[in-house]
């Protein structure tokens, strides 16, 4: 039926753009961690470009979804799929903002040696990148188990967050001069932890798209 063909085509466009948005997020997070570990302000600057691309894709996907809602009046699973995409892109866009915020902080450390070894922050980054990818994959493949797994994976992110926070508290107590860097590390870690939460939100919307129940 012709109406269905058009709908499927429009939805595929949304899928493709979601994958692209996810790819930019992956690069943005990788780059902001690299900017931190390699103390490279040029790479930090590149994160801004990624963030712009992410914003642009959010607008594009939003337009596609609104067009589908207007033209196709989707119901049942079609309706859930389109509304889930609309909600997911808000989380994805926020993730882009947070990657940019991290990149900005990395440029403010100056030349002094880092007060701590960078070990947990890159670990957090690896996990949250995978979480975002899993969220988008789960949506595209209608994979309920994968969507539901995000909540548990996020526990690991929270654990690492707590480890870093404790380390930084100890460092501040040991020498108040550490405070300046400690605050910046803390903010970076908090942003990463928030990205994990956004990925969990995405997983919840995927669950809604598949089952009709938002957990």
């Amino acid at each position: 039926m012709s109406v269905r063909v058009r709908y499927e085509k429009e939805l595929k466009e949304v899928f493709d753009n979601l994958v692209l948005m996810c790819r930019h997020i992956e690069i943005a997070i990788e780059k902001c961690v690299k900017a931190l570990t390699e103390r490279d302000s040029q790479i930090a600057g590149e994160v801004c470009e990624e963030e712009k691309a992410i914003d642009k894709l959010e607008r594009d996907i939003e337009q596609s979804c609104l067009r589908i809602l207007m033209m196709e009046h989707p119901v049942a699973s079609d309706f859930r799929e389109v509304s889930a995409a609309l909600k997911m892109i808000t989380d994805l866009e926020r993730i882009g903002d947070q990657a940019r915020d991290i990149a900005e902080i990395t440029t403010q450390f100056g030349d002094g040696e880092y007060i701590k070894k960078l070990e947990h922050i890159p670990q957090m980054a690896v996990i949250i990148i995978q979480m975002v990818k899993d969220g988008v994959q789960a949506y595209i493949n209608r994979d309920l188990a994968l969507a539901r797994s995000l909540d548990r994976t996020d526990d690991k992110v929270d654990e690492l967050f707590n480890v870093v926070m404790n380390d930084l508290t100890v460092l501040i107590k040991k020498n108040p001069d550490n405070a300046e860097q400690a605050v910046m590390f803390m903010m970076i870690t908090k942003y990463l932890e928030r990205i994990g939460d956004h990925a969990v939100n995405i997983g919840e919307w995927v669950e809604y798209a598949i089952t009709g129940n938002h957990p």
Partner: protein
Amino acid sequence: MDNKFNMTVKNCDLYYGDFHALKNVSMDIDEHEVTALIGPSGCGKSTFIRIFNRMNDLVEGCRVTGDIRIGGRNIFDKSTDVPLLRKNVGMVFQKPNPFPMSVYDNIAFAPRTFGMGGIKKRRELDAVVERSLKQAGLWDEVKDRLRKNAMGLSGGQQQRLCIARALAAEPKILLMDEPTSALDPISTGIIEDLINELKVNYTIVIVTHNMQQATRISDKTAFFLLGEVVEYGSTEEVFTKPQNKKTENYITGRFG
């Protein structure tokens, strides 16, 4: 008839000669609710609503079995007063069917026929006509042409006239068979608003092919397919997470 006008249907089968048009249909319809019936053409929706005012009695070779009650009373009972039943169960059709007489006489038809409420005085009948036309949202448009022939009204006005005519009989239940399918969006909107207002006092069952209309106006939705009720539940549930794959496929336009 008693004061309650809920409808209960248990194990209803309906045949037109050899054709099995409704198959073991069971459904409870509560008072003051709008129930939408959806499904492909020829699946039994209109046949189903015509049971309630026993309009199928007029169809040769039509046979109904099962337990069909309004307000707890079996409407196929020998003691049923069929004209009274039809007064209580009003019907509006897809195509407006005004009688070829004046606007006033169209509306006054039922009160005159049923001699309702001891209406004797002209003034009382005028009041019923005015009230019914107001309820149907038509009064302002026709109050200066009550003596003109109803056939001269526009399609949307004619349909509202038919609704007013049905309301003048003071029914308890209103059956509507695709009442807006021939109307423009403005007339459709007026009738949808009207249905929303009427449900306070009436129980409404509406057949519609317009999915958006079903979501806008109904509390419950039943999906008919090949004479069977595939799914019946709250409209929100049916249109956001239908339980049956056939419902999903139909409402999303994947078949039918």
